[in-house]
């Protein structure tokens, strides 16, 4: 019979459909794995309210565990997902992929605060500028490097 640990390991095979370099475990959206009487309940949480990837992820989990154990996927909103749950491993993968990982600091004041300094994932320069707070997906902002001129995505901080 499959153990909880093995299920956690298996879940590493389900990747985020929008950022395939990250698994759902890296992202911290798997909140709980419960095992009872040969049935497994997995609780996941969305990154953003309108995240269109949730259904795909749910399907991915069901397909992954098909034939291994019967599974129910539950979704929860509280506590709300934060970028703090992104694993160190996930941060490194993002950087290698060309997406700047979220900076740990909180955006102090919502208004009038200077945008966070985000180092360029390509040339590592800190001389970058925010082009738009909203990027190609809900979880990203759009930046550009002033040194190497490359545009890049920033996985924005959500707390």
């Amino acid at each position, binding site marked *: 019979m499959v153990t909880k640990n093995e299920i956690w390991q298996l879940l590493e095979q389900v990747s985020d459909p929008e950022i395939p370099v990250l698994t759902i475990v890296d992202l911290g959206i798997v909140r709980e794995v419960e095992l009872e009487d040969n049935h497994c309940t997995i609780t996941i949480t969305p990154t953003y*309210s*309108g995240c269109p990837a949730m259904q795909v992820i749910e399907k991915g989990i069901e397909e992954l565990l098909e034939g291994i154990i019967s599974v129910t996927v539950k979704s929860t909103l509280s506590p*709300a997902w934060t970028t703090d749950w992104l694993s160190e491993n996930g941060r490194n993968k993002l950087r290698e992929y060309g997406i700047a990982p979220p900076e740990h600091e909180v955006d102090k004041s*919502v208004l009038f605060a200077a945008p966070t300094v985000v180092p360029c994932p390509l040339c590592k320069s800190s001389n970058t500028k925010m082009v738009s*707070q909203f990027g190609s997906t809900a979880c990203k902002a*759009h930046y550009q490097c002033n040194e190497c001129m490359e545009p890049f995505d920033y996985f924005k901080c959500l707390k």
Partner: protein
Amino acid sequence: MNREQALFEYTLRIADDSLILGHRVSEWCGHGPILEEDIAMTNIALDLVGQATNFLEYAAKVDGKGKTADDLAFLRYDRDYRNALLVEQKNGHFGDTMARQFFFDVFRKLFFEGLTKSTDETLAAIAEKSLKETKYHLKHSSEWVIRLGDGTEESHQKIQESINNLWRFTEELFFSNDVDTMLLESGIAVDLNALYPLWKSQVAHVLAEATLEIPSGTFQQKGGRTGFHSEHLGYLLAEMQYMQRAYPGMEW
């Protein structure tokens, strides 16, 4: 009216503000003044529709009549919508859209901060989730109000007109009736009367930064919260509900 009916009505107000504004903002898709704004608008619309889904799912559950969130979104008539008049107003030009968004975002941030402390666990959880997104929306709309107000002579004049035109819909955001009274007693609802002065001072702060005037007009139009909408909502619903009306029960 019993507690369940009040809670249903209350949840619909929140859901419908998100749903109708989300649809409005999505109308910018492909029409943004610059590519970055097109992307920003569609992101904001997605957040709002996502919030609406969460609130409508809860409303359907509280209602207990076997309806789904989709039934509530797509199969009600205009008189059954509970959104404030502000959010159904047409997009107009980009300044009009930003002024509408700014008034709403300031309200929404304060409201969700309050709702995270609700004794209703589901409402508190959705509020906690939505608040994080709303902070980004507010930053975006405030910066545009400042940029346009403190921009060129033309942008200043245009955004001032937008602010003046939409001002009459702002007080309705703080509308409350016996629904609120009932739910305030049990700690479910947010005290909107207490939020209004905060809203005013935060709006004044940004308008000052934007070198814009606070409108002096005192006329206020209300009705959305009790189902009396402007003609604009009908057109919006015609487009939003088209698919479900033409092909009842269809799914993606």
